[in-house]
């Protein structure tokens, strides 16, 4: 059931794919703003540069937490791509994110603190919807295992379209895109200095960048899961979803954190719950 080959492929290939996705993202963003934009290899140059820089931290434990963040994000993605239990994947994802928050709290800096608190609010905002997504997948395919869901012939997207929409909503938070990039964001955007990553510099910031690439690939894999019945449609859907995220990023201003939490919980409660209830009703009660 657990396919170790896919886990290894993820560990080796995800940073390359994630970095390229980030580079293409920056290129498309630049074109949307009427600019030429950097090379699509720019994220790799940035991370290469960060590893050439001096490591200056306020507190040594920050480095430890940054390393834990990478390890648990790799674990999350590897478990997902190996076809493991979706619930465990979701919990590991939260744990990874918590390490980033702890790293930000480890430095005694007001900007870092505000960033960390906002990161916690983001976790609070997206977590219900992500768990509902896992539950929705179970109701649709009768399994929590990613391998079963991915190879299922059931058109998952047709059974849980509401949950898919809800997931897209929180995906904007997870990918750190406007209007929900309240804790930190990409490119040249600024948010209370640099939010949760303010106190990280040099190699540890590079690690956080690489983690974000892993996370992007993992999240796009999650989107694919809705279309597992047809790989071609799945890949096309993943590309369309990411382009849509770039469009949303470039056409929206950042909102306040209150709206992020309220709206994502509301979306989870409305589209997620209604979708699940309809599914239960149609299948004639609890399966």
């Amino acid at each position: 059931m657990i396919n170790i080959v896919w886990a290894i492929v993820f560990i080796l290939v995800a940073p390359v794919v994630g970095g390229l996705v980030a580079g293409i993202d920056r290129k498309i963003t630049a074109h949307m703003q009427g600019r030429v934009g950097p090379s699509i290899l720019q994220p790799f140059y940035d991370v290469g540069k960060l590893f050439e820089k001096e490591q200056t931290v306020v507190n040594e434990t920050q480095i430890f937490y940054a390393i834990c963040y990478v390890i648990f994000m790799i674990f999350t993605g590897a478990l997902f791509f190996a076809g493991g239990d979706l619930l465990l994947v979701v919990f590991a994802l939260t744990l990874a994110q918590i390490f980033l928050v702890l790293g930000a709290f480890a430095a005694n800096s007001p900007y870092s603190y505000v960033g960390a608190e906002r990161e916690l609010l983001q976790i609070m905002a997206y977590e219900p919807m992500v768990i509902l997504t896992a539950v929705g997948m179970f109701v649709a395919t009768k399994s929590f295992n990613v391998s079963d869901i991915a190879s299922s012939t059931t058109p998952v997207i047709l059974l849980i379209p509401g949950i898919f929409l809800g997931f897209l909503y929180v995906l904007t938070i997870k990918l750190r895109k406007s209007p929900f990039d309240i804790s930190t964001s990409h490119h040249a955007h600024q948010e209370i200095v640099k939010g949760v990553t303010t106190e990280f510099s040099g190699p540890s910031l590079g690690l956080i960048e690489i983690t974000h690439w892993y996370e992007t690939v993992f999240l796009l894999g999650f989107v694919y899961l809705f279309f597992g019945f047809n790989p071609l449609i799945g890949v096309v859907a993943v590309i369309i979803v990411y382009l849509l995220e770039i469009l949303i990023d470039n056409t929206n201003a950042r909102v306040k954190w209150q709206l992020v939490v309220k709206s994502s919980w509301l979306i989870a409660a409305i589209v997620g719950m209604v979708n699940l209830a309809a599914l239960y009703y149609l299948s004639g009660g609890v399966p």
Partner: protein
Amino acid sequence: MTYLAKSPWIIHYDASSCNGCDIEILACLTPMYDVERFGIINTGNPKHADIFVVTGSINEANREVIQNIYNQMPDPKVVVAVGICACSGGVFRECYNVAGGIDKLIPVDVYVPGCAARPESIIDGIVTAWGILEEKLKNKVSSPMVSDHDHKAHHKHAQGGAQ
């Protein structure tokens, strides 16, 4: 060629500038000049920055801020003084509250004169800074920790100071 030259992130600080040079720096980020195509990002966080871009001259209010930003930047780092005020104090150099150019306080690597400095010359200054960054990385130059201790002691001594 190292990665440093391909991804120079800047932090921009306005030290008592009239805003003329600052507008020109921001013009560099617009679609017209688009410095992001060289990988240049305006970070707003000294801990992420490689190039410290300062406009305007030093006065009593900003000398501590400039030193603080400089000290917080990880090595290798480069300082670019943009505009004649940052280079030498410009027309304000004789003012009672102005100490002079940025090099009175922190080591400056690139001077970009002009009032206001044109975006082309600012970009030229930053491109020159890449070379210095690479050189500093190769020679493992560690920048000095700058401090204003003597200056502050002097002010404490001369009651009231030049505030």
